[in-house]
């Protein structure tokens, strides 16, 4: 369940973002703490007001903060754009949430029926999940693969996920949905190409 243990490119990008921001934040916190602490030391004379205003308000308050924020923002927007960019030849699946559980639908004809609470995807391929809900708001979240997106009545949201390797990944509904919320979970099974073909043709449950 940890977002710091990514198993796909989207989650990995976001985990990288986290480590960068954490480092920056620790440095800034240290800076502010030291600056605050230094104000308690004994000083012979105090610099004049205009100088202080320049240093603290223009320099630190405006200059420093804007520079840091602009850099971070650019990084964040670029990451976001990459994660929401349309992907070519992705596998398209559907996810419908409800208070009873998740129902997943697959491409192709009738051979492959819907599955309940287990989403099968091919490993190593981009998968676009179209997400909606039958009743209240839910959210589709597989922490090791990607961020979450809400399932909202009357709307369809899409999310691109990709698992690098075959395996099972835990997913949860991550928008409070009343009694039973704790157990509104699902699983994503990433399959290797052979299994995926078998799954699509209905040979695998």
């Amino acid at each position, binding site marked *: 369940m940890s977002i710091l243990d990514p198993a796909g490119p989207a989650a990995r990008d976001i985990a990288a973002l986290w480590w960068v921001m954490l480092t920056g934040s620790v440095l800034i916190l240290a800076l502010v703490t030291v600056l605050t602490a230094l104000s308690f030391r004994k000083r012979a004379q105090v610099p004049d007001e205009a100088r202080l205003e320049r240093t603290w308000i223009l320099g630190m308050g405006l200059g420093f903060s804007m520079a840091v924020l602009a850099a971070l923002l650019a990084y964040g927007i670029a990451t*976001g754009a990459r994660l929401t960019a349309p992907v070519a030849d992705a596998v398209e699946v559907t996810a419908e949430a409800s208070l009873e559980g998740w129902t997943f639908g697959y491409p192709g004809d009738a051979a492959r029926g819907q599955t309940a609470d287990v989403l099968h995807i091919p490993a190593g391929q981009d998968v676009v999940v179209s997400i909606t809900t039958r009743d209240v708001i839910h959210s589709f979240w597989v922490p090791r693969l990607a961020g979450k997106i809400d399932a909202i009545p009357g709307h369809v*949201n899409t999310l691109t996920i990709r698992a690098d390797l075959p395996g099972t990944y835990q997913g949860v509904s991550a928008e409070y949905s009343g009694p039973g*919320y704790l157990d509104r979970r699902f699983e994503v099974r990433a399959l290797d190409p052979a299994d995926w073909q078998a799954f699509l043709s209905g040979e695998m449950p």
Partner: protein
Amino acid sequence: MTALKRHRRLEAIWASEKGFRGWFSTVSHSDLGRMFLFTSFFYFGVAGILAMLIRAQLATPHSAWASEEVYAQLFTMHGTIMMFLFAIPAIEGMAVYLIPKMLGTRDLAYPRLTAYGFWCYAFGGAMMLSSLALGLAPDGGWFMYPPLSGGIHAPGINTDFWLIGITFVEISAICAAVELCVSILKYRAPGMSLDKMPIFAWYILVTALMILTGFPPLILGSILLELERAFGLPFFQADLGGDSLLWQHLFWLFGHPEVYIIFLPAAGILSTVIPVMARTTLLGYGWIVASIVALAFLSFGLWVHHMFTTGIPHMGVAFFSAASTLVAVPTAVQVFAWIGTMWKGRPDLRLPMLHILGFFFTFVIGGLTGVMVAIVPFDWQVHDTAFITAHLHYVLFGGFVFPILAGVYYWLPLVTGCRRFFKLGESAFVLTFLGFHGTFLAMHVLGLLGQRRRIHTYDADAGWTAINLIASIASFIMAIGLALALIDIIIHLFVAVRGKRSPWGAGTLEWATMSPPPSYNFASLPHITSREPYSDTPTLPSDLARGTGYLGDPQGDRRETLMVDIASGRPEALAVYPSNTTLPIRMAAVTGVFFLSLLLKVYWLTPFAVIAVAAFAVRWAWSLGATRDAGPQLIGRDMQVPLAIETEKPPGWWGSAFLLVANATFFGSLLFGYAFLWSIAPGWPPPEWLTFSILEVAIGIGAALAAPVLIRVANARVNASRPATPASAATLGTIVLLAVCLVSLILRAPSPTEHAYGATLLVLGSYGLFHAVLTGIMLAFVIVRMRRGYVSAARSGEPAIARLWVDYTAGAGTLCLLVAHVPAWLT
């Protein structure tokens, strides 16, 4: 007159009634401010206990003692009480208590309104609390998202408690905001121009304006959701043309500014206390004012950052992401201005300063995680996890609880006139600080490890047990710390060890009187020439007590103070306050009956309650004014000014103007909702449109155009001392015509339960109609007042107030008709 005699005279005029009854009839800002603070801290205790129950539940996977239904009530009520019944009222209490004292005046603009606001808060809060006692507390989370909170998925009364109780409590916030705006702009000591105002007043002014523009969207949302629940108007149901996202927009349009409404006054405390603790003056006063204003504007452009996971297109969220990071800039300006102030002076590590250091450390972390979640992709991961819960507590606890404790410890000597006895405060702070960080630092990690917020327990093999246990143990340490602080404060209140006046050596006016301050605050009002008058004139308290300032000679038994020009602080008018009365509490009680009738669905009672409220309001307004011109009044220092009721813009005019700001925001939110449903909601176009009626539009708009003209004719005739009844009656006639057109619109609109379109038209029409009726009543009131001699060329304020409302109603009515008909006509 000697100082002592003057004190006795003023005390006789201003004192609240003695004993038990005094609690219910007081209109003194000092009393009411303390009552607000006491009550809000009581709720802090209640919500704190709920928090402890939550942490007990989550301590280990096996410690869950509450069912998930109960747990849902716990976290919903914890969040709701903290935000609506603790934080906002605590700020109101601080401001109500301090603002007149800091501004060198004797009370707020509308003492009875302060009392009414308090009682609405007290009764509304009691309503919320009773839901908890009955086990019927709201359980949809503090932001109450439909459809989960809608009638289908939450049929019980729980959600109604929230929608109706919170709306009731919000009346008090709106009252306080109107009152604080007018007080800060118009009720200051003479000579105190805007740039000489204590910085705290700037913070409160901006906060009050934000309440006026931030709360209406939520009030609208609550009304719409309650209409859906009670009468099936499908505003939030996707299959009937509604959209649950509309609620999220309305809620966060309120919810984000709310965070700043809580933070700004706390920052105001910091900007006041830090310079005193550092024995210097604030660095960059002008910059700070600019950054408060910037913060206020920016904070209204950020709400979407609470909705990054709802599937809004990436370009859209990128804009809000940028705005959300930008808002960190004015905050950074303030933080560095404070640090710069400490560099400028020589900070002392006294108790308020400890809390300020606690603030710095905590709030900076909260700000940094805030910037993190403003970065959209990261928010996709941590949204709705314990990471968000941790972040929001760093901001709210760091940015509010520490500053308010600093403020309480700073101003307690003023309130009580005593000094602290047992020094429990320091150890209390250390426990609170360590406990806090233990709890919430850990919760960040839980969020990163995938723990959702609002889950009532978790699996033993999830790997979260140890961290949760740490968080829970730390939270109990914090609770002990807070309890110690409380005991410390209570001991302070009851163990009287006389302290000296102004123990911190502050320069602002609140210290330039006795402590505890007398009921009239200042025996005479100072003339202000600098930002720190008390530092400049150390003899100020005794000078004022000797009556060297303004209004040192009380006339009769009038409660007097001065109104000033907004920018320069030049005295403009002499305001006379009403004295002790139980009218506010009685009016709040019937207001409560109104809300209770909605809650319990005894709708036959509702109209009676409305009539009762209106009757009280008329009585309230009737008791003001006079039937004879009094002419210029001596105010001391060889100056003369007219009575406030003999000016063009009496206090009521200013109050109306600010109330209309809130009202216009409400209307704007309604129009936004209409446009939103139209363009975004699935399930449009509706099955049936309104049929266009040229007659309805023409008559309605014609009446709306005529009304402002006619009321101006009436105003002009009043000013020329000529009979104005006919013109006023004609205005009333046009308003009635407008009302008729709006009724016709309501009756002809498609069924409100079949599609959100019809429902929206009903609400629009009703909004216009409500204002037409209200304005009609005001005009009738003014006409009667004219006939009884309450209006003259000098006393022309009441017709001027009516003009404000006529203009507003005409504008709103026109817009209602247009937005209903133009689309119907085009399709």
